[in-house]
């Protein structure tokens, strides 16, 4: 059985209830590995349907200040990709059904070796890998290695992505399609505008379910994304900032936050 079917089963289950998926992001190793593991459990308890985890990289060009700072803290505490895989393997043993995706950068993948990286992800029970600095044009070898390991390659679609590229994304991507809600880097915004046209075009092309990220930090953003036709949303910077603001009580803080966001995914 391919691990990736966890996404399919999750989207089917949520569709029956007319719910969108609430995806929660955690930077592994920030502030330390044990706290990250506790936060993942707490997010699931709070209602997260899927998890996105960052493997910290020294030069995260797609990330805004909040997630950059989290990566710096994680690296300063010595978190390595091997530590992250071990943490995820343990999470998988506790939570057999929750889809988990890795978000990281190309150099960490090629440094281990593409095939070896995706195999390590598969062995840790990871469902998908999104490489933030690999656009469709460079994706083929990453998609091939992902396929060989039975891991879903997640690709990013943006409001300015041309039709031909969207078609390529629809062909190559598996699991879900990460739709960036706006230009720029990651970060929590007060207001979020959605490009419903992008979601419609992806739907027509038969792309994997669209999940919106970048800037989504409040329940009203979640409701607006669901109305616009998103299959789910991912919140990153808001969770990272919340945890950083509650030292020693990170898990409890993100559990409550997750419950509020999950509520907003329901009709």
């Amino acid at each position: 059985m391919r691990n990736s079917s966890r996404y399919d089963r999750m989207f089917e289950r949520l569709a029956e209830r007319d719910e969108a998926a609430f995806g929660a992001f955690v930077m592994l190793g920030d502030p330390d590995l044990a706290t990250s593991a506790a936060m993942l459990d707490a997010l699931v308890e709070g209602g997260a349907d899927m998890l996105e985890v960052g493997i910290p990289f020294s030069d995260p060009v797609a990330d805004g200040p909040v997630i950059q700072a989290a990566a710096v803290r994680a690296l300063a505490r010595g978190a390595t990709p091997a530590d992250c895989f071990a943490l995820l393997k343990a999470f998988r043993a506790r939570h057999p059904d929750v889809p988990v995706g890795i978000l990281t950068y190309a150099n960490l993948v090629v440094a281990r070796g593409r095939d070896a990286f995706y195999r390590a992800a598969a062995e840790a029970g990871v469902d998908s890998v999104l490489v933030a600095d690999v656009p469709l044009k460079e994706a083929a070898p990453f998609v091939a290695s992902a396929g060989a390991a039975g891991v879903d390659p997640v690709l990013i679609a943006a409001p300015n992505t041309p039709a031909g590229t969207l078609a390529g994304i629809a062909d190559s991507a598996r699991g879900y399609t990460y739709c960036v809600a706006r230009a720029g880097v990651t970060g929590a915004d007060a207001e979020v505008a959605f490009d419903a046209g992008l979601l419609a075009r992806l739907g027509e092309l038969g792309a994997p379910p669209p999940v919106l990220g970048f800037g989504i930090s409040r329940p009203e953003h979640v409701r607006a994304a669901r109305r616009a036709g998103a299959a789910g949303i991912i919140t990153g910077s808001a969770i990272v900032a919340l945890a950083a603001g509650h030292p020693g009580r990170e898990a409890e803080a993100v559990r409550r936050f997750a419950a509020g966001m999950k509520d907003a995914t329901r009709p």
Partner: protein
Amino acid sequence: MKRDGRFGRYGGAYVPEILMPALDQLEAAFLDAQADPAFNAELDELLAKYAGRPTPLTRCRNLGTDKAQIYLKREDLLHGGAHKTNQVLGQALLALRMGKRRIIAETGAGQHGVATALAGALFGLETRIYMGAHDVERQRLNVFRMELMGAEVIPVESGSRTLKDAINEALRDWAASFADTHYLLGTVAGPHPFPTIVREFQRVIGKEARAQILAEEGRLPDAVIACVGGGSNAMGAFADFVDDETVRLIGVEAAGRGLDGAEHGATLLRGRPGILHGAETYVLQDADGQISESWSVSAGLDYPAVGPEHAYLKDSGRADYVGVTDREALDAFALLARSEGIICAFESAHALAHALKLAEAATQETLLVVNLSGRGDKDMVQAQGLLAPSA
């Protein structure tokens, strides 16, 4: 994109998907401009009447040996104080062609920032320069120059607070601002089409030097020597000599405090292939792929990656890459000042230091061309501290 932007296995465009349309637009504008005589005429006129091209090729009167003559390609005499102005003028014209009203750039030593600031002033473009906070401290004079010409200088506090972090920050700005902003990248690194665009706008260095040495000596040089940080002055010096198989191409990397330690910027000598700042190329990194912090006395060579075409020239064997330490570079810097009355940039002193070694070792008639990529005004304060005055 029309081209894949590969140099062998190196290069490519590893950026978030949201930036791909901006790179496509830039490639299209560049290809269109290259074929447009009016664009080339305007650039040539700017290079001649604003920037001061052609720059001289100066034969050293006192450096060199009985056997070896050293010629200096005097990019230090270019307006702005370094070779950077060549390609900045080209990219600024591309920005205007694309209808952009704002330019952003990263800078290490500050030379690219200064060149971008002068183009911003000249063409009335809003200009923002990202500069590592550590570099802001060691290159105060260049920060003031940029500000005097109307640019806004943003000190970058993240990471190692040097050039690589300034590039990260410029890329983040561009991901949000590409609609009205051109990222005026300063070297032959970064995603396609930057390595090709910057090389083509810097090609003028080697093109002139080749004609000048032929006129002077009636033959091609035995070697062309240039320092390599990101690698733009070297690619510009090498490009027109690549097909001349008898001419050795030698890139000089910063060996910093020694190649055996961690404090250097010798990416091609001590790094391994990876992906940074949009390109597959040699990268200084640890076993997991985390980027290492580089070191050099010269901010312009203090960079843990390198232009992808240099990676290709290294692997193919067409160019050789060597290291010169901080100490050797400082000695060459002082020797050039004392012997020839020329104060060059610390970066360029690395290339000269290697040429001096080759000259010493020469057993037959040898002609060496060194690209003196910049002048040393920016390094005066640091030089004062490093070279004990003869009190």
